[in-house]
């Protein structure tokens, strides 16, 4: 327990540890603070123009998108979670983990895959016209590139958040409360509506908040479908109208939405902790479904899996088989190399920073460090678009200030030193993904008993020494998981990379998006498929860990 008033005979590193953590937290909050400050800054003509013309549309579309995705993820996530936790039907074991697979599918990839399959020139409508002899305008077919289409796309890849948390909540419910409700005259369905669902509500709300954060953060899907929401509005204002202030103001309003979700999510998670009424966990009662009911359960679980993963993955594979001979050339390898290097170096940096902060929290046990980590943890909720704008504004200011100072003093132009470099890109990634690596590292650290630290210190070892000789060997798994998750997240990241990447520097995600935007859907499939395949790795890890987790067993 370190009290700032006490003189500890600590090494220089230990003395600088707490200030270091505070400084790190501050540096990584700069983008969010920058954007938030625009809420209070005076506005220009372009902002007024936006307010008069498109702001209402952005608001309406964002809200509709959120409502749609909330309903979609809720219905799919809760249904599948209920079926795979409390019912027994053929194929259940397989569904438990395969239902997570859509997590590996970035929304923008599924969006243009479905566009390729279902738009006017796509195989489905062509086939219909061949069979019926109809021509353009003779029949109704739902438009994929619409607000409704975006809702379906996002729901299909985001429902696993709700599924995951709801299923964990159903499994944690003690058997007693469900049995009590049955003795009090509830049947299977009323006990679900009146007991199981309300008990799982905090977890479900938390899962939906996560899905909605991703919805607000999405740029690829809405941009490809041409829907005016905040993220697309920020891009248009920035690149089309060239007004960074107005773009930042839009980002600031989006930030308000995000913070609301963060508050809802944290509040729900806290409430979820108080919902355990008893610690008795016996084997859950299982409703054994047979015949038609079993078939319906199977179909209900198959649909999200089929449309969220299998079908688009199948289509991508077909395209890739057609085009890989042309697409996989030296420039593709360069793309992969860029992506891997960027992902790896960001992941290593993120884990190092996470160890610095999370282990500092453990050793220093100070409230300031605690608060710093909570501040950094907000990053995971902030859309890449916001972070990109929040990174580029201070960096440009820094570059220009330095440049003019150097010109005045030494007649040297330093130009744009940081903005438009990989430094800016990696900084933005760290703002967004540091929270993820801290969370993973912390989950490894808490499993190591404090007496391990104390034993090592009583044997004359310093904290840093202990980290390398005791903690790291004991938490290899968590550290590797943190590396993997950050690596994959970086690989999938689109909007921040689009805004911040150096000229002529591409990643797989950017390239796939560019090709798709140029209507070269088939050509983009090799890069897209690669992202999906690598993205499967953390999903497999996740599915392994949920398969073996059940409170009390």
């Amino acid at each position, binding site marked *: *327990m370190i009290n700032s*008033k*006490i003189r500890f005979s600590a090494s220089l590193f230990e003395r600088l540890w707490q200030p270091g953590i505070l400084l790190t937290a501050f540096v990584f909050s700069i983008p969010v603070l920058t954007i938030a400050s625009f809420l209070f800054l005076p506005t220009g003509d372009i902002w007024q123009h936006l307010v008069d013309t498109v702001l209402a549309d952005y608001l309406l579309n964002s809200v509709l998108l959120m409502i749609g995705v909330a309903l979609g993820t809720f219905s799919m996530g809760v249904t599948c979670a209920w079926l795979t936790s409390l019912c027994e039907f053929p194929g259940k074991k397989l569904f438990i983990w395969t239902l997570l697979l859509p997590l590996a599918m970035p929304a923008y990839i599924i969006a243009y895959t479905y566009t390729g399959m279902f738009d006017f020139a796509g195989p489905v409508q062509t086939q219909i016209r061949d069979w019926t002899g109809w021509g353009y305008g003779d029949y109704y077919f739902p438009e994929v590139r619409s607000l409704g289409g975006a809702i379906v796309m996002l729901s299909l890849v985001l429902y696993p958040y709700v599924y995951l948390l709801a299923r964990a909540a159903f499994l944690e419910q003690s058997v007693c409360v469900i049995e009590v409700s049955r003795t009090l005259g509830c049947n299977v369905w009323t006990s679900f509506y009146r007991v199981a669902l309300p008990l799982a509500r905090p977890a479900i709300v938390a899962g939906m908040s996560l899905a909605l954060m991703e919805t607000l953060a999405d740029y690829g899907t809405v941009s490809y479908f041409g829907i005016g929401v905040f993220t697309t509005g920020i891009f248009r204002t920035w690149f089309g109208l060239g007004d960074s202030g107005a773009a930042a103001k839009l980002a600031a309003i989006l930030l308000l939405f995000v913070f609301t979700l963060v508050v809802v999510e944290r509040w729900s998670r806290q409430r979820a902790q108080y919902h355990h009424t008893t610690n008795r966990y016996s084997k859950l009662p299982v409703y054994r479904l047979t015949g038609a009911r079993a078939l319906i359960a199977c179909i209900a679980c198959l649909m999200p899996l089929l449309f969220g993963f299998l079908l688009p993955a199948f289509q991508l594979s077909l395209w890739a088989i057609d085009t890989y001979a042309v697409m996989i050339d030296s420039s593709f390898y360069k793309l992969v190399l860029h992506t891997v290097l960027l992902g790896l170096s960001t992941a290593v940096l993120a884990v190092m920073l996470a160890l610095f902060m999370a282990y500092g929290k453990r050793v220093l046990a100070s409230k300031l460090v605690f608060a710093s980590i909570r501040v950094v943890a907000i990053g995971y909720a902030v859309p890449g678009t916001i972070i990109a704008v929040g990174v580029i504004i201070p960096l440009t200011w820094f570059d220009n200030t330095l440049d003019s100072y150097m010109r005045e003093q030494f007649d040297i132009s330093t130009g744009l030193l940081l903005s438009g470099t990989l430094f800016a890109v990696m900084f933005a990634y760290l703002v967004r993904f540091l929270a993820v690596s801290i969370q993973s590292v912390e989950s490894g650290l808490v499993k190591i008993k404090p*007496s*391990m630290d*104390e034993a*090592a210190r*009583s*044997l004359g070892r310093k904290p840093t020494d202990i980290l390398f*000789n005791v903690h790291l060997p004991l938490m290899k798994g968590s550290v590797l998981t943190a590396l993997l998750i950050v690596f994959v997240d970086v690989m999938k990241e689109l909007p921040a990379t689009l805004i911040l990447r150096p000229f002529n520097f591409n990643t797989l995600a950017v390239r796939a998006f560019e090709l798709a935007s140029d209507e070269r859907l088939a050509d983009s499939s090799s890069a897209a498929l690669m992202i999906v395949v690598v993205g499967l790795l953390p999903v497999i890890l996740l599915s392994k860990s949920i398969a073996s987790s059940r409170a009390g067993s």
Partner: protein
Amino acid sequence: MTSQLDVEDLEVRYDDYVVLKAISFSLKPGKIGCILGPSGCGKTTVLRAIAGFEPAYGGRILIDRVEVSSRDYCVATEKRNIGMVFQDFALFPHLSVADNVRFGLKSWSSREQKERVQELLAMIGMPAYGQAFPHQLSGGQQQRVALARAMAPRPGILLMDEPFSSMDIDLREQLAREVRNILKQENVTAILVTHDQNEAFALADEICVMNEGRIQQQDSGYNLYHRPANRFVADFIGQGVIIPATVENEHSVRTELGSIEGEVPPGSAKGSLVDVLIRPDDVVHDDSSSDTAIVVEKSFRGADFLYFLRMDSGIEVLCLAPSHHDHKINERIGIRLNVDHLVIFERS
């Protein structure tokens, strides 16, 4: 002889809550001390303050005459030259037994390390277990490895936090004697924290009884039992009851069961009312005695019976009787007092 450990007027607080107050004791080199008390009395906090895990709010701690803790000053644990055996042993699961023992010998040459590890493994009777991993060992073996690891760097003082609490009750006393032999062999100065008086008696040279963050009495086990300083110690160590008595003169008091000879505190006026401590072994079962009492309860303990007896005045006493004296509940039996140590408290 100078002392190896001095705790002077130590005070520890958690935020504003006073956990320890006016803790003072010292320990001479090679001695084994024990802090004995009920759970929550602050005994582990004393140990953690000596180890440097908790800062001192007031007073000071000296190890080998060097000040390591005082108000606003706290030497880091790793620089205190202490060893510690933890309640859960805290063996490093990823290291072999030999590497666990070697962990604190970083600055030694590799030859010295190897010799020291071999020496300790031999001492704890596990010379062939160097390459084994902690999870392959029994609880008792893990405990001995934890002890060897803590002793390896020859710490100025060895701290043991409830080291036997996760052991089988039958094994505890035997292990405590084994540990005592090992500590004496290495001439280690050690402090043990426990709530189990049998452990304390088996292992320690000197015992501090603690309650509510304060030291109640510091003495040998024999004296704690026979000359408790206050009612808490009398109650906590061993069994017994407190019965009323009247001072007769400087050398005796009168109770319902007759007079007890012994030292009466000076200043107690003749005829004043006091309380005296009566241990079960102070009350002897004697069929020929004119004093009798009724058996209220009895518990069979193998070699003897512990009888709960009620006298005619309603006062209850305990009596230890050989086990062939098997009396029934509600039976009236003869008793007499045979008190070696008169323990008097002021009337509460």
